[in-house]
């Protein structure tokens, strides 16, 4: 089954971000192909905006790590590195909190089905730690749309 691309015909070309500033904060929206370098560009821009709001070093670290893990998960596990599939990133950066939404074009997943990487039988396995870290570092994490869409919030405290 083929889908018409929701975006530009060249999957390597990132869509221009949509950035809106209000008195409540900055809204940033991106649609990117399954490309780690593009993901990192998005991360850098969102992190720059977070820095503008003077979040403390631990919060910036948490947001950076969580964004990295979430975008890599979307590209690798969601879209299975398929360049024709997109990752949709939204950030709402305000003085009190940062809300990040990452959605992919993959089949979705169930959180409970991801094995606990800290259990003795999994501790020497090489994967499965991304979600655990996000949940530890962010104030709240939830999924909708069958696990395709992840919403995470970091409060500035």
């Amino acid at each position, binding site marked *: 089954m083929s889908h018409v691309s929701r975006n530009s015909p060249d999957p390597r070309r990132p869509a221009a971000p949509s950035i809106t500033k209000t008195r409540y904060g900055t809204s940033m929206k991106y649609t990117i192909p399954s490309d780690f370098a593009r993901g*990192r560009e998005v991360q850098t821009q969102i992190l720059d905006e977070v820095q503008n709001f003077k979040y403390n070093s631990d919060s910036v670290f948490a947001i950076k790590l969580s964004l990295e893990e979430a975008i890599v998960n979307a590209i690798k596990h969601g879209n299975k590195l398929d360049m024709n599939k997109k990752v949709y990133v939204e950030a709402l950066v305000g003085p009190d909190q940062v809300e990040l939404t990452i959605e992919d074009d993959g089949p979705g997943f169930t959180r409970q089905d991801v094995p606990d990487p800290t259990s003795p039988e999994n501790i020497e396995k090489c994967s499965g730690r991304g979600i655990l870290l996000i949940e530890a570092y962010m104030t709240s994490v939830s999924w909708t749309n069958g696990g395709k869409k992840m919403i995470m919030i970091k409060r500035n405290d």
Partner: protein
Amino acid sequence: MSEQAPPLAVIHEKDIRIVEFMNSKILDEANIAEIGSTLNALIDEVEQPKLLLDFASVDHLSSAALGMLINANNRIKQRNGQLRLANIKSQIFEVFRITKLDRLFRIYGTRDEALASFAM
């Protein structure tokens, strides 16, 4: 996106190989793969390899980097070698603690402490 500088520096201290990470971030997949294959080559160089990884310059690392470190640890164990980690900054140590990898790896505050911990 290739890195301009090699991601690792290797110092020989008797039969111990001290590996310094040159970048403050261990995030990029290609970068992690390169580090992983360099570590594998060092591990395969000798019987019972002794490896000390110095994290002094590292400010960020991802779960993919943790996977690479676990891989190196498993390979060293297979060869009856020893792996030590040192100079991990507090924010990064927290990543090891959350994932309980602080129990899997032998982590020391300083390079000297880590060097002294190797069994002869």
